[in-house]
């Protein structure tokens, strides 16, 4: 047995030596993977930042009906609190959604710094400004200089004053423009979902965004006009949007819910949400009054329009809209001899008879009984409102060449410049900028040049001589141009109070909210900063009516 033990130990010895090898493939492999996932190349970062930001804005612009409701593009005919600003009562978490993208951008900027890819750093910086401006514009004082620094030990970031944030953001945009201009690396055309690798276009975005911010703060920044003029007058150093396709927006892919337009069949499977979102009467009436060719692009004819002509009762009309979508409308007689119907034919309910395009009254509670209602609930259900238009079938598509997730369009800049010119902040022709704006917007929605020219030739379009009249018309068109870019429309409406739609429909009893309340978690987890932030408001109350620095 002794010899057996010796044999065994000999084997142990040999195996021990053999197994003390330096082969560490598995752990090295894993470490390499670990390093790899902490780094990612510029192209992937670019596509991701663009995608996330565009979808963020589209959510604000359409999906959350709070802002499209507040600016009267859209009303809900079911659970209609957004028709009269209800959602502004609660603390809102949208700044957290922006922060999540900012964290991605912050990481991206860190990585571009390491690699020295200055063009990308400039682009990312522009997005950084965009999202920080969203935060301060909607909330007031927010974290900025101490944001995103938990790795440096800042677990409770303080809020910066809005004035200081604006100073910082404008400076960052200058830097961004310089970095993009001076950077040498190429942008991947595939991964640049917006401009296909054309870096001058990104410079245009940075500078146009700066003009947007300057105009927003123009009553606080004394030389805002001069600054805008300086940018506009130096197109080689600071190019801005000048063409109808200078738009920061991306097309949808349309294969999955997550890459499709939010009203499309993939996102909104049964279409019940689509059916609950109706164009606002304010929008439909404005488009109708101006013979706007965008009406038929955006709005569908009513399914069962009211008629007061007995001969029309039951007559069916087929409509094909400019994008080839078809609709069937069947006229229904206003029959006061039908007792069931008669009780609903009150002035409140019976609106817009004898019209194919009808909007939902602004500020109306979302209920079948109200404005333009169908009297037969059994046929309609809670949201089968056949007397009000829906949005056109364009907005029921998963993707379409005209459907974009929009961040900022070129027509917006033209309207800003028109306003600046009308106010005398800059030299230049308000009328030219105004007409360019209308043209760019219509081109964006596929309107033919001939139709645009017809539209522009109408006397109702021409700018009047007086400044107030000019500004009102510019604001009307800017409001139409910003259709579904609701986040910007709201800020514009808040700043200019134009177009004056605040007392439309049932809204006269409701005060227009001026800001978002801070998210509840700020009170829970960052209370000192929160309290300091509230002191920046006037009055010093965290509600939707307090004024931030921009409005003080």
């Amino acid at each position, binding site marked *: 047995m002794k010899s057996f033990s010796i044999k*065994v130990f000999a084997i142990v010895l040999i195996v021990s030596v053999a197994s*003390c090898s330096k082969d560490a493939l598995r752990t090295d492999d894993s470490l390499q993977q670990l390093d790899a996932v902490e780094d990612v190349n510029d192209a992937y970062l670019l596509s991701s930042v663009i995608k996330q930001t565009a979808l963020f804005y589209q959510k604000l612009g359409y999906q959350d009906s709070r802002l499209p409701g507040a600016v009267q593009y859209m009303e809900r005919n079911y659970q209609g609190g957004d028709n009269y600003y209800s959602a502004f009562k609660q603390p809102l978490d949208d700044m957290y959604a922006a922060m999540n993208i900012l964290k991605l951008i912050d990481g991206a900027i860190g990585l571009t710094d390491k690699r020295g890819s200055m063009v990308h750093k400039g682009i990312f910086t522009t997005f950084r400004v965009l999202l920080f401006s969203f935060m301060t514009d909607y909330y007031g004082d927010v974290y900025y200089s101490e944001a995103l620094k938990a790795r440096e030990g800042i677990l409770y970031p303080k809020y910066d004053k809005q004035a200081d944030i604006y100073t910082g953001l404008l400076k960052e945009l200058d830097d961004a423009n310089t970095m993009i201009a001076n950077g040498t690396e190429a942008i991947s055309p595939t991964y640049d*979902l917006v401009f296909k690798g054309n870096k001058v276009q990104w410079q245009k975005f940075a500078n146009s965004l700066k003009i947007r911010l300057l105009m927003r703060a123009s009553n606080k920044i004394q030389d805002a006009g001069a600054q805008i003029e300086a940018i506009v007058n130096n197109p080689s150093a600071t190019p801005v949007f000048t063409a109808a396709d200078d738009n920061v927006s991306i097309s949808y892919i349309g294969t999955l819910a997550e890459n499709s337009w939010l009203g499309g069949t993939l996102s909104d499977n049964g279409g019940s949400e689509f059916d609950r979102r109706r164009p606002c009467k304010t929008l439909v009436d404005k488009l109708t009054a101006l013979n706007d060719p965008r009406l038929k692009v955006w709005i569908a004819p009513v399914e069962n329009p009211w008629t007061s002509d007995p001969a029309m009762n039951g007559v069916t009309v087929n409509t094909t809209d400019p994008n080839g979508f078809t609709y069937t409308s069947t006229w229904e007689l206003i029959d006061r001899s039908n007792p069931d119907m008669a009780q609903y034919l009150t002035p409140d309910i019976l609106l817009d008879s004898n019209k194919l395009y009808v909007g939902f009254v602004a500020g109306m509670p979302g209920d079948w009984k109200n404005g333009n209602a169908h009297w037969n609930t059994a046929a309609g259900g809670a949201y089968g409102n056949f007397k009000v238009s829906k949005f056109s079938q364009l907005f029921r598509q998963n993707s379409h060449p005209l459907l974009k997730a929009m961040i900022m369009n070129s027509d917006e800049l033209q309207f800003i410049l028109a306003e600046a010119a009308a106010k005398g902040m800059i030299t230049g022709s308000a009328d030219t900028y105004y007409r360019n704006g209308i043209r760019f917007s219509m081109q964006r929605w596929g309107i033919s040049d001939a139709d645009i020219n017809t539209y522009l030739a109408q006397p109702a379009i021409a700018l009047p001589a007086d400044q107030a009249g000019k500004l009102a018309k510019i604001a009307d068109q800017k409001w139409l141009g910003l259709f579904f870019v609701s986040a910007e429309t709201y800020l514009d409406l808040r700043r200019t109070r134009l177009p004056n739609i605040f007392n439309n429909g049932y809204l006269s009893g409701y005060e227009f909210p001026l800001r978002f309340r801070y998210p509840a978690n700020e009170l829970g987890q960052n209370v000192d900063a929160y309290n300091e932030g509230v002191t920046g408001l006037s009055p010093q109350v965290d509600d939707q009516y307090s004024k931030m620095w921009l409005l003080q």
Partner: protein
Amino acid sequence: MIKFFYSHQFLNEKKDNCFLLSLRCISILIMIAFIYIPLQGFSYNGPRHYRFKDVRITGTVKDEKGNPLAGVSVAVVGQASGVSTDNSGNFSISVQPSAELSFSYVGYKAVTVKVGDQTHLDITLTSEASTLNEVTVTALGLSRKKKSLGYSVSEVSSEDLVKASNPSVLKSLDGKVSGVNFTNLSSDPTSSVMVNVRGSTALPSLSSGGADVSSRSQPLYVIDGIPVGAQTFTPKDGVDFGNILSQLNPEDIASVTILKGGSAGALYGAQGGNGVVMITTKSGRGGQKGLGVSYNISALADQPYQFIEEQMQYGQGERIYEWQYDNTDTWGPPTDGSFSADYWDVKAQKWANGPQISSNEDRVKAYLQTGSTITNSLSVFGNYDRGSFRFSMSNMDNKGVMPNTKTNQKTFNLNTEYKITNSLKISVSAGYFHTYSPNKQNSVGSNSVLNSLLYNFPNNLQPLSDMHDYWLMGFEGSLQNGSIMNTDGSVANDNPWFTTYEYLHRFTRDNFFGKVQLDWQMGKNFSLLARTGMDNVKESYELRKSWGSRSDKYGQFVQGTNSNLLTSSDVILTYNNNFNKFSLSASVGGNYSYTNTSSLEATADDLSTPALFNLANAAPGTLSITSGANTPYNITQGYSAYALATLGYNNQLFLDVTGRKDFNGAYPEQKIQYFYPSASLSWIASETFQLPEIFTLLKGRLAWADVGNGLLKQRSVDTYSFEANDWGAAKTVVLNTALVDPDIKPMHSVTKELGVDAWMLKSRIKFDFTYFEKDQKNQLDNIPLVPGTGYTGLLTNIGDVTSKGYEIGLTVTPVRSRDWNWDISASFTQYKATITRLSDKFAPNGYIFANYDGKTTVKIAVGEEIGNIYEQNPILRVKSGKYKGMPLLDGEGGEFQVSPDNADRQQLANFNPDFILGLNTTLRYKHFALNLVGSLRKGGQYISVNQQYLESNGRVATTFGTKGTNNPYWEGGRNAELGGLPWPAAGSSQYEAINNNNDGQRTDEVDDASYAKGVFINPNYTGDPANAKDEDYIVNGADKNNTFYQYPYNSYGDVIWDFASTRTYDATNFKMKEISIAYTLPDKLISRYKMNNLTLSLIGRNVFQWNKSGRHEDPESAFTGVGTNQGILRATLPSIRSYGIKLGVNF
């Protein structure tokens, strides 16, 4: 297999510690030695076929004092045949001369004698108390004398595990062990069991949604000395697929030992903090010489009982006068035939119109079937001079109580032992365990059939038996014949048979277990143990959903795999010696462990072709792949060194000291080390003092330990991962972040215990008592941060939880005679765990509420008891004045309002029982044995989500109106007879808000006005609501013209959703866990067939259940989803009783 894993593992190690590496080398030695063993050692060397003539042996059995002992069992070793002594202690038996006889009697030490050429035997039995040398398995698999242990361990022997043929080892422990709470995930016999040793001390978590049942609270499992981790189970889409413990064959288990306190488990270092469950499998050793065969078969029927009662009087709709055929709520018209309506005739598959009549069918009862569990188990064992072996095979087939569900388990297990020399022994074990479920159904959650049948299946729908054709004729495979259809042809409610046969969860688990152990007695004082083992679990899972379901028109296919390799090797050197009155046993050792896990899941969200279940059939753009979240952090490894010493004095005082140091971390930045000490003292007072004779044993225990609970150093990371779906031609990434406190400390638990063991009246009474404190310190969790930091949370040490309690075990043998024997044992467990410290960072205000199941919350604060559940939506109440405490209704619709103030949140429940009492009794008469196991859980509450949906959907009689049983927050009813009030005329209120509200709901058809009980502020009041005076309030309902009315569907739904307190129930229950009656045939009848120990048993499990609340729900299944949120009960299976027979025989 064993060789395979070694080659695999060794490739991947770094040469960083040659000393510890040698552990692995020794493991290889064992493996090679095994290969070299001459296998003929196991074969039989003698002429076994020849049989000697039986000889008759007579004799007498007496005790130490010379008194004859009656009823002593005289048995032939290895056979069950035997006799008992008569009243004079005499016996007579015929045996082979080669046989050994064993003499055993309760309270006395058993004696085994070789017959040889003797014909008369005089035997003296000594009482156990004088020897007390029973041994038990302790940490690291070391056998220790029980009397020397300074801590409490619970042991359950094989016999008690298999009496009731429970397919799960863990389930059969309930009611038999003190200090441990076993909670079934559901009443399904194949469901998983959650084990809490001495109370769950896991802090409610902010990051994982409440005090979930995660591995954070589960004990470490050790099988034959190889730690296999803290097992939870594999949940998929609401289906519980069990874990490796549910795969073990109970017939293979020799014993289960639960190391409850820290001292008992301290040698497991960083893993032992929640207690240790040690499972020892049977070997061939100790049996008869030669070959034996044992066979068992059991067949049980599993029958559901205790069904929730639903109302059968009212059908689909929201109001009593209006039929809504596409509705799943039953607030509609009566189903007594008085109301005719259009409906979808499911059987005829066409629209029809006719009177609506209740089917009077209990849907759950009609749906469920009697299941069955059939288990076959065969083992072959051999015991020889040089070694022994045991090989077993088993097959378990379970047909579920839910139709079309099955589980099959097969096990193969081999344990061998060979003595290379008299001092060197090698043991090898190998096991293969296989589970296959062609389909197991989701039994919880919103997409389960049970959920649909309970809440969404109005009584007027046809009987389930009329719905078996679940495809629309001519559209088989693509369009469903729903139980409720919409007029546009889409499905409004799924056909339950569609879900049963076209929504399948398929699962396979293969588990390979292997172990090699070398025991070497090196001279007189030294011995060496070297051991290595591994467990490799591979799971594969498929979800197959055909086209045509309501929510998923184009089906789904998911295919996933998990793999988990775990290896562990130990080398332990032990020194044993006696110095006069002192004895010393000391060991040093080391351990190396390595785990490698991976998982991959691919989902085809839509299918291109119906019912073709492969990934290539994914509709374009719908295929996505997720791999394990922790990739590439899928490797862990750890080295440990440990030492222990037991110093004994004069056989009466024993001091135990242990220490273990763990070195963990596979990557440089993860490396961490920590030391875990323990000490315990055992004093046998009955040896020190001359105690009255009534005491057989009196022992005191004292123990202290500091053990670990997870030891992994993490670092802050920002990592990018590609999104599953590209944006067109562009890939996109998401950022994943984790922030870790740089000063983070490992979690550990400090435990203290104090106990007494007292055996009295010749061990006829055995009593043990233990008081314990377990302090789970430095628990880890994420402190929530605002996103402005760039992170959602910071992983840090958040606080401590202390559990205090006591456990009592009592065994009494009131009757002991030749023919009769009666044993009663009871286990009592009581504990309470409270939060004792919180990090200031974590709860700057002193407390914080964490989300629980979405409808309730848990409070995290110092002094808060673990298991407390709070309201999600505290009702806003008047703060002062005459109406103080009354709900403050809103001024627009008269509805209850949610208070924004956390201080208003009321505690609803605590899911922990006040105590658990397990009762176990065995009564033997001659060849008959009756065994009963019951368990009483006293106290604790649960919240019934069932009741919430039943009420808001109008499914139960409590929703009829205030003239029946009802909740206190609502007045009204479905019509006047049931308590409904007349609607006031239009415009009859002086307040516009009230008119607006009431006008929108008024009907002339029926008096169904109802209202919420509370007060509202006068709508004309313009001041700050906080300053409202008594006169500014109006009591809703006091003046019918100034009352906010709602119709019942609106207001009752509101009430029941807001007031979780109305659906909180006492969880006190008693369950008759096991009943068995066994009859063992006298061996003389069957020995001619070379059989022995032929036992036939009648078995019942869970035959009876008493719930204090009177509700037909099993409070012990109170989990919302699979494995989450104890204390929240939702659409689980009804209770299930099992009964059947078991037959066992040895050859």
